[in-house]
């Protein structure tokens, strides 16, 4: 029971910074939005895709006219990658799962974009933390989702990684992708945010709202030690 009475409406193209201390419910909220978790009560709606995930009594996602899953990408605490497969093999596998038409081109482009083209045949097991995170994000974006969820993506990244993260997120924002990024400490990617929502004790504490100014809320964040 990590969340209580959370009700949020997020418009396409918004870049939401989800703030809050550890244990405030950020991860739970992201997982519900990713359709990984079904809320015990309440629902998740993707207007335009019209997918409703019902809470109590039913576990199925009721398809009204479309499947939202191809539109969702998530970068979690773990890499969601297979260590014993190479970078290319990982992307190929997910490309097949998502039934992507131009898989080869997409994979080549993704590997280029995250700077791993030369290491495409190496097992993920041999990658550094930064490289894995980049590949994880590439995997999440491979199928061209319209919404990207990120759970503390800056954690453990070095300077180079942080720069790359910021550049990637900026590109996504310009492309109109909806981004929800959770963090418990200050990082530069937050400058891209158009909205800030802070959670505490499983509840929405403050919300800068659509069209509002997220900066006061962001400024209140501590810096990363």
């Amino acid at each position: 029971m990590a969340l209580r009475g959370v009700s949020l409406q997020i418009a396409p193209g918004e870049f939401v910074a989800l703030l809050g201390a550890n244990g405030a419910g950020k991860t739970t909220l992201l997982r519900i939005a990713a359709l990984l978790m079904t809320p015990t009560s309440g629902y998740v709606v993707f207007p335009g895709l019209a997918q409703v995930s019902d809470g109590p009594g039913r576990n199925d996602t009721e398809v009204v006219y479309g499947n939202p899953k191809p539109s969702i990408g998530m970068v979690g605490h773990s890499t969601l990658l297979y260590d014993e497969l190479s970078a290319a093999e990982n992307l190929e596998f997910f490309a097949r799962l998502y039934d992507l038409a131009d898989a080869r081109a997409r994979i080549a482009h993704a590997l280029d974009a995250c700077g791993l083209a030369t290491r495409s045949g190496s097992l993920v097991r041999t990658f550094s933390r930064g490289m894995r995170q980049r590949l994880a994000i590439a995997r999440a974006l491979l199928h061209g989702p319209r919404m990207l969820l990120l759970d503390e993506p800056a954690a453990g990244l070095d300077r180079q990684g942080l720069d790359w993260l910021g550049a990637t997120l900026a590109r996504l924002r310009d492309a109109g992708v909806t981004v929800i990024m959770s963090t418990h400490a200050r990082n530069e990617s937050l400058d891209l945010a158009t909205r800030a929502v802070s959670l505490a004790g499983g509840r929405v504490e403050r919300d800068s709202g659509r069209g509002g100014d997220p900066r006061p809320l962001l400024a209140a964040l501590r810096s990363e030690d």
Partner: protein
Amino acid sequence: MTTARAAAILLAKELRLEFRTRELLTATVVFAVVVVVLFSFAFDPTAAESRRYGPGLLWIAFLFAGSLMLHPSFGREQANQTLDALRMAPISPFAIVLGKMLANLLFLSVAEVILVPVFAVLYNISLAGIVGRLAIVLVLGTLGVVVTGTVFSAISAHARMRELLLPLLLLPILAPLLIAAVEATASLFSERPVLDRAWLAFLGGFDIVFLTASWLLSDFLLEE
């Protein structure tokens, strides 16, 4: 995407992973061989004794080896939370379960193909003329082990003491399958080998019941 196609993609991934590390298969085969060899110390493998106890030992070796091998089926997906990635993909939960069932079926079958000749040699049982029919019994029996075992792998992956829990859940459920498989195998090892249709039908029934139950319950199995 159809469930079958998604399952095939997952199967290919499982095979590739296993081929890369080969840890599961090696461990399974070695363990099964050890069990079979140890049992051989328990009695003198004369023809009559072998026929009497052999089938039971063979299937117990498969069950033990299978329990060991089935545990990482879903356990492996926990390392980097890759199960999340699978669940977010536009495939049905049953496709995920089915893909793993098929992979486990292949792995356990490979282990059996290696084990059965070893067993035949150690226990002086001739396989001449019964190989085809034995294969049918093996497939039907292994299917039952793999269907229930994969489901319980998913269940126990979330529990503490999961290595111990899987056999604890699996072996009682498989009791009727064990009886059926042993009887069917015994009738093939007898002086006049015959394929016992009643037991085969029972095995088939077991497989269908639990495959259907898995299909109906796979959503619940994988949910959070």
